[in-house]
């Protein structure tokens, strides 16, 4: 293998050094962006001081106001507390769906099923009730209009439930 060319100094050395540094920096940024594409980056939430039961009512109301059907839920906090016979902060997941949206998504991308159904999490944290949802990914150009529409609804549900 031929030896690497020697760079004796001067402007060429600084240009090379800067190029290497910039290349490394962009690489790191790119890697970070890839990491940020994970689910945590799509979390949207807010919190409120309203009583927990009231917030649950607001979430249910907002979901149905947008013509979504509540398909299920899990009171995870209650289940944990019951198993261990000890109080556990209230926390639950509400699942909901609009089949017309689902049909449109799945006709284009059957694998989008993994992002269904829509869900909202409610939990007590530091004296407040947190309401969070996981927005749909907007990286598929075939679906971006639909996902933005549904994401707008998800955000509206969280906002309505936590607006004081």
């Amino acid at each position: 293998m031929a030896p690497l060319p020697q760079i004796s100094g001067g402007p060429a050395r600084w240009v090379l050094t800067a190029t290497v540094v910039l290349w490394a920096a962009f690489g790191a940024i790119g890697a970070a962006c890839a990491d940020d594409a994970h689910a945590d980056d799509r979390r949207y939430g807010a919190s409120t001081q309203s009583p927990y039961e009231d917030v649950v009512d607001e979430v249910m109301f907002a979901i149905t106001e947008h013509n979504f059907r509540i398909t299920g839920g899990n009171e995870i906090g209650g289940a944990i507390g019951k198993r261990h016979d000890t109080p556990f902060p209230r926390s639950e997941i509400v699942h909901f769906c609009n089949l017309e949206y689902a049909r449109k998504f799945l006709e284009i991308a059957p694998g989008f099923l993994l992002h269904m159904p829509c869900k909202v999490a409610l939990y007590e944290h530091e004296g407040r009730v947190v309401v969070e949802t996981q927005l749909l990914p907007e990286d598929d150009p075939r679906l971006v209009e639909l996902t933005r529409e549904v994401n707008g609804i998800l955000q509206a549900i969280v906002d309505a439930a936590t607006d004081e």
Partner: protein
Amino acid sequence: MKGAVKLIATVLAGGAAAVAAATAHANGSLADQHWNDDIRQVHFQNRPIIESDDVIQLHMPERAEDPTVVPVNIYAMMPQTEERYIKQVTLFIDKNPVPMAGRFGFTPKSGRADVSMRIRVAEKTPVRAIAELNDGTLYMSAKSIEASGGCSGPLPTDLDKALSRLGKMKLNVGAAPTADEPLSTLLRISHPNITGLQVTTGEGEYTPALFVETVKVSYGGDVVFSAETHISISADPTFGFYFMPQEGGEMVAEVTDSTGKTFTKIVTVPGRTL
């Protein structure tokens, strides 16, 4: 709580501006035999009804995801004034067991004759909103909706809990009043609104009907919103409407159900800023 009021106000105000005027259907809903021969005769006899979206517009999904809770918004396309106002809007769901879902009363002090609610839909059906003006003219806005089983849907999982909260109300008024703008209001009534067509789980028998019959909301002693409703209104009836704030005062909501029980809720509304 204010989020729900804001949500309703946003849908009412934004939707009224955004909904395109529907074209009147030359051979559309007025020609339906069940409507013309039965429902219309009972409620309006041979009074002419103008099919138009220029006075009110009915807005609802084309297909109900949950037929027991279908959001309905009725937008008034004209302001309420002493000279000309919508005094009543009646909502019909043609193929429901009781087609008249509700009759909603307004006055000039209502500000706007918009109303929102959630309804049960038994099967695919035309839905009609009929507005009657103070001069007696009738206008209709109609849509069709696909749904199934809304009136015989399941009872609340915990009916005893629902009955223990019977008649509890939340009455939420929108943002701080400013001059000349009607305020959006959301009245939520805790009531299972049992249709009489729902089977008690595990017993195979129908649970007797128990539903909200009348609603009257007054502000400063004047009625700003009223309703006569029946089983087509969803459980935990929720009504969005407007009123004109004045010097401030008490808003009183009075609700009676089919057993004659009366429930009352009073909130203080601050006066408008000048």
